[in-house]
C-alpha cells in the first residue's frame, strides 16, 4: 500500500538499495526471495510511472487557478 504513494525517485532509490543488499550476499534465503519480489514490483511501478499516458499540462490563470493548457492557450 505504501508502494502506491512512492515517487519514481524513491522507487528507483529503493531498487538500488535492494540490488545492493543482494550483491553483498549476506541475505538469508527467505529475505532474498522477499527482496526479489519487492524488486520486481518496484520495477513494475517505475515502468508504469514512466509510461503513464496521461500528461498534465496546465496554465496559471490570473486568479491563481491552474487550468488545462490546451483549452486556454488561445485566450491569453
Amino acid at each position: 500500500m505504501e508502494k502506491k504513494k512512492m515517487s519514481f525517485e524513491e522507487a528507483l532509490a529503493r531498487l538500488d538499495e535492494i540490488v545492493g543488499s543482494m550483491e553483498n550476499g549476506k541475505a538469508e534465503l527467505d529475505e532474498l526471495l522477499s527482496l526479489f519480489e519487492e524488486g520486481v514490483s518496484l520495477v513494475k511501478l517505475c515502468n508504469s510511472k514512466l509510461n503513464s499516458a496521461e500528461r498534465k499540462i496546465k496554465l496559471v490563470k490570473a486568479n491563481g487557478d491552474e487550468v488545462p493548457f490546451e483549452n486556454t492557450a488561445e485566450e491569453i
Partner: protein
Amino acid sequence: MEQTEREVISVTELNLYIKDKIESDFLLRGILVRGEISNFKRYSSGHCYFTLKDEACAVRAVMFKFDALSLNFQPTDGMKVIALGRAGVYERDGQYQLYVSQMRQDGLGSLYEAYENLKAKLNAEGLFDENKKRPIPEFPNRIGVITSPTGAAVRDIINITGRRYPSAEVVVYPAIVQGSESVPTLLAGLNYFGYTKLTDVIIIGRGGGSIEDLWSFNDERVVRAVAASPVPVISAVGHETDFTLCDFAADLRAPTPSAAAECATPDREQLTERIAQTKSRLTVLTEKEISARKDKLKRLSSSRVLTDPQNFILDRKVALDIITEKLTDKLKIQIQNKKTELKEHTATLNALNPLSVLSRGYSAAFDENGNVIKSINQIKNGEKISTKVSDGTIISTVMSTEMNEVKKHGKEKNEF
C-alpha cells in the same frame, strides 16, 4: 565603344565589364554601411542572404558561412546594423551587391554599457557565485515554466518534456517576455512557483530576438528574483550566443528553451533501459544466490563424513595410533636419559666416598672406642687397635710406638 559603328556585345560581356569596373575600385573594396536588415535568410549551406535598406534605398547583401559564423548575434529583420564589406557584382543576374565580412548591431552602445555595469555590480555581490548553484532535480514531478504561452519556446518545452519524461506535470505561467510590461509578469511567475506551490524546477526564458527583445532578462529585479528563488531555476533566453544576466544568476543556463527542457527532465529511454538492467540484475543475483546455496548443499551432502562414515572413523583411529606411538617413543627416551643421568651421579658420589681410598692401598686405624688414630699419643702399648683395609678389619695389639724423625726435632708440620 567610341566607334560610330558600335560593337555588339553579349550580356555576359556587359556584366563582366561592369563587374570589373566596380571591383577594381579601391574605395569599394572596404566600406562600412549603416542600414536595416530585411528579408534575412540563412541557407542550409550556412550562407546568409539579406537586404540592407534605409528610408529611401536598398542593396542586396550576402554574408558567406565562414564570416557568418563569427557573428555574435542573430541577425533578424528590422535590426539596425553596421556592415563591413566590399561591393561586387553577381554577373549572372547583373546585380550589384554587398559582400559582408563583418557586422555589428547599431546603436547598442549605451545598452551594452548598462549591461556590463549591472553585471559587474551583481557579480561583486556574489549573485553569480558558482557555489550558490543548486543541482537540478533528476526526476521532477512538477516543472514550472515562465514564458509566453503562445511562443515557440513553450511549444518546444512541452514537446520535449513530453517526449523525455511525460509523467512530469508542466505548469505554464503566462509571461510577457519583452517590452515595458514584461518585468512584472516575470517577477510574478518566479513568485508563483517559488513561494505558492510545490514546484521542483523552474524554466524561465523565451526564444531568440534582438538584444532589446531580450532586455527584460537583464532587468535587475528579475535577475535578483532568479538568484533568490527557493526553487532551482533554469534560464533559457534566446539563442546559444545570447547571454543575459538571468543566465548568470540561474542555477543552470540552457542555450535554448529546448535545451532547458532536456536539462529539466531525465531521458525516458535511458531510464527504461536502466530499469530493465536493474530487473535483470535482480533475477541474475537471485538465481546466483539460490544456485550458490544448492551447490553448498550438494557439497555438504556428498562429503565423506556422510557418504562413508566407516572410513571416517578408521582415519581417526590411524591418527590416534600414530599419536600413541609418538608418545611411547618420547617416554622411552626420557627414561633412558634419566638412567644415564643417575649413573653419572653415582660415579661422582663414589669418587667422593672416603672409604674408596682404602681400595687404593691406604688403611685407617681406630682405637677401641672407634676413634681414628691420628697421633701416637692417642694409644698406649698393649692396647688393641683395629685397622680397616679395603676388604676387612685387622685387629692387632700395639707393641710400641715411634715418633717420626721430623717430629722429634719439634717440627709439627705433618707431611701427609
